[in-house]
């Protein structure tokens, strides 16, 4: 599964994209796995309410299932326009 990061999430984690092997059932499970890895992940995911997630380029929720998903994206609230 590909994970992509944008804006300060990307900066805090220190990379734009990575490939992970995971058995996580939901996005939240995946977040818990990532946070357990290293302090920079712990820091990036410290406040989930400050983050948004997209599954296969569609905005989604943290309790959404990951089955069949190829790309998970984490980023702060958007500031377009």
């Amino acid at each position, binding site marked *: 599964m590909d994970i992509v990061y944008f*804006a300060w999430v990307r900066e805090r984690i220190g990379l734009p994209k990575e490939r992970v092997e995971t058995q996580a059932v939901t996005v939240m499970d995946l977040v818990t796995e990532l946070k357990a890895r290293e302090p920079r992940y712990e820091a990036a995911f410290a406040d989930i309410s400050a983050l948004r997630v*997209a599954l296969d380029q569609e905005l989604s929720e943290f309790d959404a299932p990951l089955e069949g998903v190829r790309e998970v994206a984490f980023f702060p*609230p958007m500031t377009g*326009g």
Partner: protein
Amino acid sequence: MRVIVQEQAFDFAAEADRFSQGAGGAGAIVTFTGVVRDADAGGLAAMEIEHYPGMTQKALEEIATQAMTRWDLSDALVIHRHGRLEIGAQIMMVATAARHRVAAFEAAEFLMDYLKSRAPFWKKEILASGNTSWVAAKDADEDALNRWSQD
């Protein structure tokens, strides 16, 4: 309907002109242009706009299609840039064409409210001091979206 995501500058006048020429049957055309302005506290050198290439085009097309249907627009245009933009540079524009002015205005505001909070762009202010700071999402922008929710 046209949706364009690009790094290079666009020609607002030419786009607005082309849009108005092609908006057959419309009595009302609204455009919005967003321009890089100095930070409220001053000292801005430039703006850096990051986006999510795989998602941006699709997200903008969905938003524009929604607007076309909901307000029965004869045409809609969305252009959004990414990359580094200097003060005074045009960031993006939307244009809407409808039979009546209320629909054209509402559709343009709807597009703007969705672009602000739902399109995958992130703005970073680059200050003359060398400091940088990610622009925080505003509660007011999130609130602005709620007025468009349909039961």
